[in-house]
């Protein structure tokens, strides 16, 4: 599998480490309540199809990247800098 780092270009997936759903970008407010926090920390979708997830270019530039990937075809549809998505 290959991921196109927006900074470094197309690289083998071995250079990256995986974190999980890009939901991690949407941190609730401290007072958002138990349900919101439980969802944020523990609940994840498991879609057959497109999924947005966070990868860290650990063996490269150190960028966190939001990768849109299809879990059925393994196609990597897009890779964006998380810092820009989060803004």
């Amino acid at each position, binding site marked *: *599998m*290959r991921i196109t780092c927006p900074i470094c270009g*197309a690289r*083998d*997936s071995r250079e990256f*480490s995986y*974190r999980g759903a890009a939901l*991690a*970008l949407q*941190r*609730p407010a*401290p007072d958002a309540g*138990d349900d919101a*926090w439980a969802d*944020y*920390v*523990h609940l994840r979708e498991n879609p057959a199809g497109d999924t947005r997830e*966070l990868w*860290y270019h*650990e063996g490269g530039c*150190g*960028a*966190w990247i939001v990768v849109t990937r299809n879990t059925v*075809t*393994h*196609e*990597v549809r897009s890779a964006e*800098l*998380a*810092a*820009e998505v*989060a*803004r």
Partner: protein
Amino acid sequence: MRVNGKGLIDRSAPVGFTFDGVRYDGFEGDTVASALLANDIRLVGRSFKYHRPRGVLTAGSEEPNALITVGRGAEAEPNTRATVQEVFEGLEAVSQNRWPSLGLDLMAVNDLAAPFLGAGFYYKTFMWPRAFWEKLYEPVIRRAAGLGALSGLPNTDRYERAWAHCDLLVIGAGPAGLMAALVAARAGLDVILADEDARMGGRLLAETHAVAGKPGHGWVAEVLAELSSMENVRLMPRTTVTGAYDGGTYGALERVGHHRPRDDARRPRECFWRIVTRRAILCAGAIERPVAFRNNDRPGVMTAGAVRAYLNRWGVAPGRTVTVFGNNDDAHRTARDLVAAGVHVAAVIDSRPGVTLEGFRVISGAEVCNASGAKALESITIRHQGREEKIATDCLAMSGGWNPSVHLTCHMNGRPTWAGDILSFVPSPGAIPGMDVAGACNGAFSTAACLREGAEAALRAAEALGKRAAMPDLPLAEDDPYRIAPLWHVPGKGRAWLDFQNDVTVKDVKQAAVENFRSVEHMKRYTTQGMATDQGKNSNVAALAVLADATGRGIPETGTTTFRPPYVPVSIAAMGAGAEGPGFAPQRFTTSHKAATERGAPMIEAGLWYRPSYFPAPGETTWRQACDREVAMVRNAVGICDVSTLGKIDIQGPDAAQLLDFVYTNTFSTLAQGRVRYGLMLREDGFVMDDGTTARLGEQHYVMTTTTAAAGLVMKHLEFVHQCLRPDWDLSMISVTEAWAQFAVAGPKSRELLNGLLDQPIDDATWPFMSCGKIAVQGIEGRLFRISFSGEHAYEIAVPARYGDSLFRLLVARAEGMGGGLYGMEALNVLRIEKGHITHAEIHGRTTAFDIGMGRMVSQKKDCIGKTMSERPGLMDPERERLVGLRPVGAVRQILAGAHLFNEGDAAVRVNDQGYVTSTCFSPTLGDTLALAFLKRGPERYGEKVRMVDHARGVETLCEVVNPVFFDPEGGRVRG
């Protein structure tokens, strides 16, 4: 038998080799298979299960029978296909799976026991009694059924792994692949052309067709000459593309050293390539399938295309009186080429009625129904118009048609499509993103069609990559139609073989259907059809046809089994090349590594780092003696320890303080410049992630210290928090772990030591506990931190890494002059346990700030990562297992990490569990065993007694629960 005037071998270069100890001659360009056939060796192996005599069946990597072991001792390579192994001077090959010899194989009694060893015999016969399986059945079966044996010695050969990148990967260098590579290369694409054969050209080397008015191999030579001259082309012969993966990545195995003697150059045996390409064209050709009839596995029965290949490419006639049997026009070529070369063809048996041919006897509408001859074919029996006739022959060339090599197109879950006109499967379009298919593997069997499809696929690739390419004038080549009628097996008595390598017969497949293993995947596992090292390349389609027939379905409805990489066996040595021994993981060494090893310090691994365990002194015989001495040294004088492995993250910017407040439970924005603070970091789920000290070097400049183990994790975490959660904050950070050499100077004489070394002396007023700042040693600028992990008056001094070795030696010399010296990880651990300081033995991922007694460090004035979740009621429950100290109170003084705790009087069973021990040591300072543990309501139970029970090691110790700070609980020494 060699045929004069035929073949592409170099007759001026004879080569001697041995097979089962007998010397034979071959020529440069021969494979072991062609050279053995040239020497009239027919019997080359024994079958897997029944030990039936077997000969060469094919001329390619799909060979199921002719498996040999090449070389001896540690260099032995079992299960080498004789059809792929090139001969070279001195090559030693031996046959496999026979005892005591190939000619007399006593294990052939299995063949007589065949009625009991049919499909499913494992499941039926050996189920019961259970103990018999392990002790009797399995060892016996394993000895009797098998392939080549491993040497049992460590592999002394070298293997490699490598990456390659290109615009276009062309897989296979037959007419389609050569044409594709040529067109693409002329258009300027960066091309890799990979072919598993030693010599490129594919079937053009095995046929007599003319291409562009020249012999096929002549046209091949011209194309290769042009490709070789182009800088944008890389030719990779002896390279089998083994798998297609995501993102245009392909696996490939290059046989670098197998075709020549081992020499001093230490050339690798194999190289496992990962090829990343923008486009690929599969030109893998096709594999001919046998016809199943009684005893069709006799040595001398071969595929028709293989017989032609041995004749035309290697100048070998595999028999003196050859018969041909087939259901398609292509088989006739074998007869024609043999006759043209002067080899006698006794008969051509065509299953289709109404076939007439000139030049030899043709028996149309007939079938071969038996083959005879013990270790070599002597005759065949044909059935024609209800009568049987025996024909003497020593070689039968059979063809059940050709199967396109669709394998790679199915590696990403694609399924091939049934093509009724060629009675086989063809690739489904778009099965692998970026891969095109051309030529025989696409069901286009004529040379002209291969050339055309290759060129067209290259044009599509060029266009997709934005290059202009022109359709060349295609060379003139044969364009014969391929006509075929169904013929999968010839009915009759006896065993008709489908999978030669796993000894699966037509009857086995029918039996599977009878027992309701009707799904092709079930049939495969029940019969082991296609599960051998050849993965059923010759036999799967015919087996499917038999299953379809037995279950009353069509072949497309029956479907195929799943094709998985690798296409051919890949040695683990190649896939794991370079990863054994020190190559298994990177090794990180501190700047003091050399000095420490000079002193004989045994190293222990801490993540990727190597750290000294202890420093043995003369007269010491155990690690404990060294450890006790080192601890006493720190407590009474001064010790030196390299702490450079701790993670150091330099954080700068206007929002640096804000980030630290957000990732630590406590506050760092209020930390004064020139001061250090201990910090605790949580995961977002509220559990402790890491701890360490952070120093404020300037208004906008901090240096964070992490534990050695969590350095990478914390760096990643900080980058996550910054980039993903607070992207607007203005700061940047970088790991400086390797930029600084940092040494702990610990003990009551630490300041005295430093003052003899630093350019400017320090005192308690300017350098109080938890202060930090710049210093200089002999003019070299460094940093000094007054921090302590040992509980003593201590410092950590840091200099740029290039001065590490020299500063270390200076520090050690001075310490030793003051009654101190070096201490290692063992002493470091004792010192910190004596002080109740935690490590990742305590913050192991399931403990909270509350559990380790640091609940109050979670600031109530601000938000931080993990704060909300750490306040869940379950995580603040006083009943939780919380950090305590333990000391033995009974006769047994041993406390063991990992042991569990129970109340006195309770049975030591799970439901009564009160907690567990995390760290333990013998304290020379206090003269007793100490331990850190987690105990339910721990801090409320000081003075109580608990039982430590180690079920695994059978130790029980009565302990007293105490404050985890065993030594100097007031902390007076650290302020010194």
